[in-house]
């Protein structure tokens, strides 16, 4: 049910159902690149077979499903060494074990697991997360996927893969969809045009952004973000039961270490 009044909203900020904190370990980041911070969460293990991660999966932000009604994110506080943008998304499906050496269609640990949240695939994005560095040779990559209308055999537009900026662990490459598409339900194969020179390890993730915030200070006292003080997109998002929430960062570069606190309310 809705948060019906301003008073209820304020009350949810003061007496939130759950105040969840999560820290993300240190790494070096290049400016203006997307990073999958799932990899630097506590107890993270690289995925292999295709699964649907949940809030119980190591790396996810932990919360308890509501006993009734729904959970809403009413506020967020950030502490980070790297100012920039943090996108909190529901990690719907992921797998790993793909190689930067193999050309042509790779199907190891594919197709991706069928979606259990946002099952239509509308607005669901395809990412490639690099778990272990691939090679230094620049090539391009595409994936074959089923779109949000259920049409299989769709092919993403190609993007750069391998070489500096597109090879390092934690990088996430977001893939543009085939003309006319607005989301993805599953990925069936991944194809690189030429070997990058190193196998490494990368995998496919399907994710649905829930909220994006702009962090312009490394002082957490200045980074209390909510629906009514701007610097964000996503409104007052509903958090699906079991959602595997994780951050993607695009920042100004340098040392990246962060901690986030989430104010959730049951309504």
């Amino acid at each position, binding site marked *: 049910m*809705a948060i019906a009044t301003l008073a209820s909203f304020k009350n949810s900020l003061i007496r939130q159902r759950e105040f969840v904190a999560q820290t993300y370990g240190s790494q070096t980041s290049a400016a203006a690149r997307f990073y999958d911070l799932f990899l630097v969460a506590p107890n993270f293990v690289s995925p292999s077979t295709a699964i649907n991660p949940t809030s119980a999966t190591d790396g996810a932000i932990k919360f308890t499903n509501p006993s009734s009604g729904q959970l809403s994110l009413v506020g967020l506080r950030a502490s980070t060494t790297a100012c*920039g943008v943090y996108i909190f998304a529901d990690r719907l499906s992921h797998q790993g074990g793909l190689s930067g050496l193999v050309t042509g269609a790779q199907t190891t640990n594919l197709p991706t697991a069928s979606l259990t949240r946002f099952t239509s695939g509308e*607005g669901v994005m395809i990412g490639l997360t690099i778990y272990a560095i691939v090679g230094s040779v620049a090539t391009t990559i595409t994936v074959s996927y089923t779109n949000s209308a259920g049409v299989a055999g769709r092919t993403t537009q190609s993007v750069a893969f391998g070489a500096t900026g597109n090879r390092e662990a934690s990088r996430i490459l977001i893939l543009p969809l085939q003309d006319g598409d*607005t989301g993805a339900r599953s990925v069936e194969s991944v194809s690189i045009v030429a070997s990058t020179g190193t196998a490494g390890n990368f995998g496919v993730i399907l994710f649905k952004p829930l909220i994006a915030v702009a962090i312009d200070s490394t002082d957490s006292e200045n980074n209390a973000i909510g629906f009514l*003080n*701007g610097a964000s997109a996503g409104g007052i998002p509903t958090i699906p039961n079991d959602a595997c929430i994780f951050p993607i960062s695009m920042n100004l570069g340098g040392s990246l270490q962060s901690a986030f606190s989430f104010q959730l309310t049951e309504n």
Partner: protein
Amino acid sequence: MAAITDLSDLINRSTGGANGTPQNVFYYKAPRVAGVAATAPITGRMASLWRYDGNPSGGATPTTVVAPTNATQGALPFVNAGGSRESWMTQAFAASNATGMFILYDRLLHMGGLSGTVTTAQTVGGTLTRNTSGSGNFAFLEINTAVGTTSVTATMNYTDDLGNTGNVSTGVQIGATGFREVSRAIMLTLAAGDTGIQAIDSITLSATTGTAGDFGVVIGKPIAYLSVGQSGAAGWRDFVTGLPSIPKIEANSCLSLLFVAGGTTVPELFGGYSIVEA
């Protein structure tokens, strides 16, 4: 149609009450067109991101004149309001590797197929289906295939927002480096005293650019200006606590992006917006 009465009403609708049907939409634009690196922008000048790859996908090259909608390939998504309600944007956000200004706008009318070598009036026509008064509408030339290397002047013959026909815009440059490459957006300037556009009758070049290429014309209405001051940072608009306040998004709006470049980096963009019904 009903007003958003107060902050309580807005919060209620933003969490699904009162048929608010909140939509929190996110999109991604890659710095590529059809899988190939997009043309580098020029500092201080405009680029059209209509055809940029992404999620949703890029738009197709326009041909005959049409009024595109939210169902047109390349439009940023949203669902029309139900019942007799209207759609209102409460937040807009854009993060990019490229500094500059992203302009979120409703692409009211577009066409392509104009030639860089024709010096007689080239017909545009078409009819607006949104913001039909023309007030505040802008128009720009959109390069789909590079035109020639000779610098010439383009003017448009148009109907202003008071319904006066036969107005002629002041000339703007097309052709030559910076004004000929794919994805360039060349804003057309109105005749003295005008503040909007209802229709464009034709586009006329003062001379040939030397190559036909393919360019078109777009009529749009701005919705949000999102300034990204640093590479890796975001620009955002909170329409609840900032001005201008909560713009209406007309049914069937074809949301798209223009980019005023702060440098020569091709923009990669992650953005979003929130819409509620009232």
